[in-house]
């Protein structure tokens, strides 16, 4: 007991010396622990430690920002290079030390590319093809997707679950496996000169049906019953209630379907209808200045022309991404694939 009191008095002296005044006996007894704690803190140099931490944070921030800036440059460089190259003259493009801003800025590359007919059709025609095929396959595909998803989500019929399971199972199979037979099928049907060949085989997309069905399922059943009481038919319910409620998903699906057409390359190349080339097939063709407008080689494929073509193909995607980012990400973040 006495020992403890002694200790307390010891600590009391410390407190006294530190603060320069005597503390009340009871308070010092109560705050003896706190006082001990205080003594420890005073040995710990707070200022030096905060300084150390602050420098560590600054070093970390410099490191993080440098890293992010480098990554951002790497992400942006191909776009920048593509844009500036499309404005350069071929001679400037081939200089051994590349210029990072075109010395002679010219739009000529674009006019040469636009007047090309090398890939079998002009750019205007190919753009029109892509837009027509894209809009038609998006609209028709959306109708098929909506009614199928609706039936799978709301209507009960025999074999529904089996059908749905079968549809989902096909998602595991690589598309190449059926492309072969589809190619044989359409050539047997003599579809060789019509654009339906580019649309019909891709109207059904199981993944979008699955996505939309899940969205439809989230709409409470009581809404359906209320609509029935009000005398709405199944079709009326779909059009007046379900479609407006799932509009964001429908917008995502339409955008992704359209982007899919814009980027489709394999099938159009395989079926190879001269009048119905698509934009991705056009961009892989070699662009030459056959009319001699640029004053260089007229037979060699020129990189500046190619870059101008690439810019024109990328720009719509770019704009779409900037204006519809939310919808595109909504659709893509669930599928893990692009387009």
């Amino acid at each position, binding site marked *: 007991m006495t020992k403890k009191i002694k200790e307390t008095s010891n600590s009391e002296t410390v407190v006294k010396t530190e603060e320069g005044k005597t503390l009340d006996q009871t308070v010092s007894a109560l705050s003896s622990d706190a006082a001990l704690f205080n003594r420890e803190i005073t040995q710990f140099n707070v200022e030096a430690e905060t300084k150390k931490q602050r420098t560590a944070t600054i070093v970390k921030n410099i490191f993080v*920002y440098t890293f992010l800036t480098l990554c951002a440059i790497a992400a942006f460089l191909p776009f920048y290079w593509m844009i500036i190259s499309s404005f350069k003259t071929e001679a400037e493009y081939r200089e051994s030390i590349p210029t990072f801003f075109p010395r002679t800025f010219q739009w000529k590359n674009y006019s040469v590319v636009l007047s090309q007919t090398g890939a079998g059709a002009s750019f205007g025609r190919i753009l029109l093809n892509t837009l027509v095929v894209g809009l038609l396959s998006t609209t028709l595909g959306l109708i098929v997707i909506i009614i199928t998803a609706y039936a799978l989500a709301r209507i009960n019929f025999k074999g529904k679950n089996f*059908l749905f399971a079968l549809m989902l199972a096909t998602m595991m199979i690589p598309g190449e496996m059926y492309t072969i037979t589809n190619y044989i099928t359409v050539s047997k049907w003599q579809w060789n000169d019509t654009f339906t060949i580019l649309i019909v085989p891709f109207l059904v997309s199981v993944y979008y049906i699955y996505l939309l069905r899940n969205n439809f399922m989230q709409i409470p059943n009581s809404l359906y019953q209320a609509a029935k009481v009000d005398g709405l038919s199944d079709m009326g319910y779909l059009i007046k209630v379900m479609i407006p409620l799932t509009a964001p998903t429908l917008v995502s699906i339409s955008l992704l379907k359209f982007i899919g057409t814009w980027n489709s390359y394999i099938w159009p190349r395989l079926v190879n209808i001269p009048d119905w080339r698509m934009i991705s097939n056009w961009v892989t063709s070699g662009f030459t200045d056959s009319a001699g407008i640029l004053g260089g080689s007229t037979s060699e494929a020129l990189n500046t022309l190619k870059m101008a073509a690439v810019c024109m193909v990328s720009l719509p*995607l770019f704009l779409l991404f900037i204006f519809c980012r939310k919808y595109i990400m909504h659709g893509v973040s669930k599928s893990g694939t692009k387009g």
Partner: protein
Amino acid sequence: MPDKKDTLPQNDVNDVAGVEENVSNDAPQQPQAVKPSLAQKTKQAFADLGKKIKGVFVKDQVALIRDAGNTVITAEMLAGPQLSRKEKFSRFLHSQSGWLFVLPAVLLMCIFTFYPIINAFVGSFKQNYQATTGRFDGFGFENFVRVLKGDTGTGGATFLQCLVNTLVFTLVSVPLSTLIALLISVALNSIKPLQKAYQTVLFLPYLTNSLAMGAVFATFFTIIGTKSNPETPGLVNLALQAFGIAPIDWMGIGSPTWELGAISIPWAKYIVVIVYEVWSGLPFKILILFSALQSVNKQYYDAAKIDGASRSTILWKITAPMISPMISYLLITGIMGGMKQYSAIVGLFGEQMGIDYDMGTMVGYIYRYIEDGYTGYAFAGSLMLFAIIMVITAISNRISKKRVTY
């Protein structure tokens, strides 16, 4: 039985009373004082009919029955409506009207999905199959043997070479881009000012046409002019020159290659593909990982800081395990997508996929044989691609089950 069914209680009190009478007629004579209640009588009546009911309770002289599923129904609902055969059939048709809605999709899938899958399995065993005429010389394993041996008589990259190419592209670029994406997302997550700006720029390559961007990347690596006297060695070689490294012919005929027996490893070309794949794969991975990071509970970091954990310890012991489900999701989907890559290679190396398909991928192999009219080889190749994807899926599922810590 049928006459009893007719006397089943209908929807009003009087008819329930009818049951009462019915039951009392069948039941042995009871003394007046212990006359069974309406509930007991209803129970008895249904037991006689052989229908299972769980309980009965009476409200306003109407017997409500609890059926096996615990739903409260009236007696009429349990008995069901009396329908003629014709009515029953039309009701059945009506209940199956869902098929009408799915009909377009089912028809299209039958023609363009289900039939082709079956056809691929059958067709891969048809020997010397001619797609245009439909002629073939019996069934056998010849297609598979020739594809695996590389004995297709057409030259160009063999299936094995294409498999090696695809595996190298995928197994290097997918983990690499996931790792870089993780570092970038962690860095993005740790800053406040300019976060949105960096995010936007890093997401820019998200939506691109792989053929177009492949062509842009090709210009980075292409040497214009001859190797000894280049007009311009390309951006990458110029950057390497700054470090004193001699220009490398990344894309051309003289591209450095290791020969390993039947397969060759054109490592310089591989690097070109991997650089492109990492670049184009990053935005999606950053998007997923960044949103995963933002949902991690901040308390874990506070606790780690109090315990004095270093930044790298926090990254590898807390952050990575917390978002490991997303990492494994990205790895699996990335590998699955990588096994099917095609158009990026065409964008980089042109329609011949390098020199005589030497940069061919498995999908490229299949398309090449479709175009050349060797449909049997294409079928066999597509079936093997399917098998390989299944194996990889099974392996990755097993690994992710073991390794995903949370």
